[in-house]
């Protein structure tokens, strides 16, 4: 199980290959990649800057992964979240989970992503034609996380 916070981009294929390397028990690898969109709440977005709480963020993500391990039989999990300035089309986050079967992998991957959106201390600042703005939390993210409770 691995959690990384970094400014640098990540190589999706390399990360997935490393996650499943040498483990013949794995029958399923589910992954999710979040990307920067060029529009949000009706305004064009030319840049998004991600801020986090160093130290606490890693602990929060590790706790989320640990919670997933108690709910599903997963062999490995990887969470990479980028911080700093990002442009539209950039990769923001990778969540990947390995398991024997797809059901466990799909569910755990979705759970980790839903909890990450609501329980990890990240903040988004968008640059729009009207200036910069901090993004408020979304009710839809709360609802997504509540499904697992």
């Amino acid at each position, binding site marked *: 199980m691995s959690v990384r916070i970094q400014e640098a981009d990540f190589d999706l294929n390399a990360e997935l290959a490393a996650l499943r390397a040498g483990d013949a028990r794995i029958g399923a690898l589910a992954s999710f990649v979040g990307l920067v969109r060029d529009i949000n709440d009706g305004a064009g977005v030319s840049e998004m800057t991600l*801020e986090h709480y160093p*130290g606490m963020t890693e602990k929060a993500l590790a706790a989320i992964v640990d919670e997933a391990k108690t709910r599903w039989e997963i062999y490995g999990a990887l969470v990479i979240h980028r911080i700093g300035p990002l442009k539209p089309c950039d990769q923001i986050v990778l969540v990947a989970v390995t398991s024997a079967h797809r059901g466990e992998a799909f569910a755990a991957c979705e759970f980790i992503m839903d909890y990450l959106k609501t329980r990890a201390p990240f903040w988004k600042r968008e640059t729009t034609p009207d200036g910069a703005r901090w993004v*408020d939390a979304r009710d839809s993210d709360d609802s997504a996380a509540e499904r697992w409770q």
Partner: protein
Amino acid sequence: MSVKVLYFAGLREALGMAGETLELPPDIATVGALRDWLVAAGRKGWRPRRTCAARSISLWSGRMPASPTATRWPSSRR
């Protein structure tokens, strides 16, 4: 009780500081009570916005963490 409070993102910008050490009255025992106390104290820029920060704080409905790196998670139901 002396507590170091850290501010992030929009709250940091609104308050003009990344954090401060506060001497709290003894009846401030939860993060929610701390938030209410700060609002009542008239901190400019502090308001209970629905931001990630506010939501994180709202999760800590129990007593305040014993250390700045402590965190509390709601018990999960299967």
